[in-house]
């Protein structure tokens, strides 16, 4: 699982165990997000969530990043457009 546009090194080290309530990253304007907002392509500070299933030796070859999957299938808590949890979807 990958989150885009986070603050550099704000996430736990690889291999860490994540528990409910842990901070897994801090939103930032990294990548091309700052430029896209300045240029008016988007007004929203946002994060991309990317989930890929590892296949083959992958990851360290720079060529194999795995099959993309639907992130919603892995998110048990849903949020509405105001950022509030939707009732009944808590994990």
């Amino acid at each position, binding site marked *: 699982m*990958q989150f885009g546009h986070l603050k550099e090194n704000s996430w736990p080290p690889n291999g860490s165990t994540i528990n409910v309530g842990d901070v897994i990253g801090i939103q930032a*304007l990294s990548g*091309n997000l*700052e*430029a*896209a*907002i*300045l*240029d*008016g*392509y988007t007004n929203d500070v946002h994060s991309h969530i*990317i989930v890929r299933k590892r296949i083959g030796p992958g*990851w*360290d070859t*720079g*060529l194999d*990043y795995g099959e993309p999957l639907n992130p919603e299938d892995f998110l048990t808590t849903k949020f509405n457009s105001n950022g509030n949890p939707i009732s009944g979807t808590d994990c």
Partner: protein
Amino acid sequence: MKKLKTILIFLVANIVLLTADLYAQDKTGNSSIDNPVQTQPNGRNLISCSAFDAITYNGHTISQINATGGIQSSVQSLWGSYTTVNENDTSPERLFMFDEAKVAFNTETGRLTTIEISNYHWPVVILGKEIKVGDQFNKLKQEFGSNIKIIYKPAISDRYVVSFNCSGNDYDGLLIYFNPASHEVDEIKYYKIP
């Protein structure tokens, strides 16, 4: 002796005033620097798409850079030896670091995603006009017209930018970042939205 002291004080005061006056002049010889944030219209500067595609980054257009496919030897043939090349282990990106710039490609598509120029050795040429890090904002006014637009969004960046793009283009752009104190270009960035 008292008269001599008075003359000396007068001379020193004049030297201080003259120095302050020279300091206030910018590099183009203008006696004052207007703050572009207050004087310039807001928005992107639209040029024709053929002119946008003809912009060169240290001598090469985006299509020429894309033609390398992000392959190391091909990138080196464009700009010479890079300092380092890194591949992200969790996303398909290959990042070339030069002394003066960073250039990133998506390794799945082989397409350019970002150029960040931080040194005057890497000029960009827009509509035949050369712009580089260190240039004064007034130079852009001279080259592109006094009504050149700027974008300033202090909640996002303390720097103001001059953006060049073409009509209908909703996937990439060229931003020229200015230091708000010196009004000099301190970064030039090409970016592409995935």
